[in-house]
């Protein structure tokens, strides 16, 4: 039993698909169709079509400014916080448009976790950071909150380090611990999807290795989309890789395939380090 709260689109979907949901990754879980995106007059994404399967790790790679982060930030409509943006085309989550008038952006974001490039713990205790999403959903039950804190911290491989200081400020953690705390916070509300925007770019190699191990663990429960500049990271932890260049999706295939035998010249040039 999961305690998903205000996620009308997920509840209705799980009712429809029933027990089959757990079995095999569905290719059309998150589907982007003919998607164009503009920051003011500048077009950032050109006619992107991609189907992201459930419960796998999908990596977005490409040089800076290629649109990979822009697409990621459209999945939970974070781009709408910026003035003057607009989009064409559609993004379907479980077959329903995320731009559907009936879907509230608040509910959408509650069902999609996000981890940022720079860790951004709130100036609160470790405990309060994790239960934040539950508190804003109106959960008051102490037992539920306690249980969520332990489950999320264990999920983010931070429980052993943090269990004795749950009520101390989260800002006293190390950089790597803070990023894992942000992952714990993102999965506290049991989202369906976890978006990771270069989650390791500010971490040292040891902390990076921990987060990558974590990604392996988390994909059993969550659909993970990770934007990365680090090609080794993409090969190490993703099942599929999408290569973006100048706002276009150039190639999308199994990670193995992309890195051993890319179909496009541009992909090959990028992964072999000829540009980017």
């Amino acid at each position: 039993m999961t305690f998903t709260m205000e996620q009308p689109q997920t509840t209705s979907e799980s009712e429809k698909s029933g027990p089959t949901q757990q079995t095999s990754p569905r290719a059309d879980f998150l589907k982007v169709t003919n998607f164009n995106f503009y920051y003011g007059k500048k077009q950032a994404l050109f006619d992107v079509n991609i189907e992201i399967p459930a419960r796998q790790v999908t990596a977005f790679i490409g040089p800076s400014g290629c649109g990979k982060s822009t697409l990621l930030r459209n999945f939970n409509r974070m781009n709408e916080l910026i003035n003057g943006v607009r989009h064409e085309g559609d993004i379907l989550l479980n077959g329903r448009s995320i731009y559907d008038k009936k879907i509230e952006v608040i509910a959408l974001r509650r069902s999609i976790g996000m981890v940022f490039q720079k860790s951004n713990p709130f100036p609160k205790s470790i405990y309060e950071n994790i239960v934040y999403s539950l508190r804003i959903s109106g959960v008051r039950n102490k037992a539920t909150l306690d249980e969520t804190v332990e489950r999320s911290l264990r999920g983010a491989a931070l429980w052993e380090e943090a269990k004795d200081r749950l009520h101390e400020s989260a800002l006293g953690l190390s950089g790597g611990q803070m990023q894992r705390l942000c992952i714990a916070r993102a999965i506290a509300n049991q989202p369906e999807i976890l978006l990771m925007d270069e989650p390791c770019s500010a971490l040292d190699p040891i902390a990076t290795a921990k987060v990558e191990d974590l990604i392996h663990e988390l994909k059993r429960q969550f659909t993970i989309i990770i934007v990365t500049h680090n090609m080794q990271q993409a090969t190490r932890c993703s099942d599929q890789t999408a290569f973006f260049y100048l706002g276009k999706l150039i190639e999308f295939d199994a990670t193995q395939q992309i890195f051993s035998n890319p179909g496009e010249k541009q992909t090959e040039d990028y992964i072999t380090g000829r540009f980017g």
Partner: protein
Amino acid sequence: METTPPEQQEGGIKEFRRRPDLFRGLCWVASVAAVAILAWIIVEITHQAWPAIKEFGFSFVATSRWLPNRETFGVLPFIVGTAVSSLIALLFALPLGLAVAIFLSEDFLPPAVRQVVRFTVEMLAAIPSVVYGLWGIYVVIPLMLKFGPWAVQTFHNTWTTPGMNGAPEVQKGIPILETLFAPPSYGNSMLTASLVLALMILPTITAISRAALVAVPGTLREGAYALGSTRWEAIFGVILPAAAPGVVAATILALGRAMGETMAIAMLIGNSSHLTSSLLAPAGTLASLLANQFGEAEGLQVSSLMFAALLLVILTLFVNIAGEVVLRYTQRQTAGIR
């Protein structure tokens, strides 16, 4: 004509360039002077106040009779007046100032309009105190002359109970409010002065809180929205707590200003030494007492006024030190936000 190379020029600002010890010495003198002047002020006030300190001692602070013609002086009403007027001003100005600061730091308005509103609010700080006093006399006092009787009727004489056995009927009011809004009501009153004071400290609170809110990193904002916060939840759950040290600093500065504010208060508060619980009655503050009486005082009254000045300095110092402690504490809570 031959010019002297710079390294051979003597004296002036050039000297400092070659003599770091001179520059350091000058900095020393300047910082020692700042501390020494504060000490000097306190010593001088204490010296002037000494006859009154000797005469009245602690009873000066604890008694409430200020009778110059009988040479009896007690400043309790003015200490209470200073505290009450500042706290009421803060009570009105803090929520209002914080609301304006939030409004100006979020993207509710187009940036151009935001700048205009911000500039206008900060302009409130540029209006001289005496002008606030005049505005209070011509605008706030007439309003209070309407509000006072209404408040008395509503909170003090809320209902009437008939007297027993032909005795006159008795007026009853709402507990607490009936003592705060007791008759008779005046135009020059504690409430009038406090309201104008609130307006005067508003720009301090708004400007410093706004700066603190703007300085909250965008990553925290994004983090809050990504977890599905509404704007309200993001502001009150994440952004405002992160800006807490700045808001605390703003509050302390505003309180310090409110306690020391003189001219507008002296013009509006009614300058009574009578200790009363009613906000509709005239009252006095330490600063307004000094402004009103110093010109005509002589003998022991002068020392008593100096004693009152000393107390005002001590009170403001105390507020600033207490504020510093609270500020350090909140800073420790939010230290490390990047």
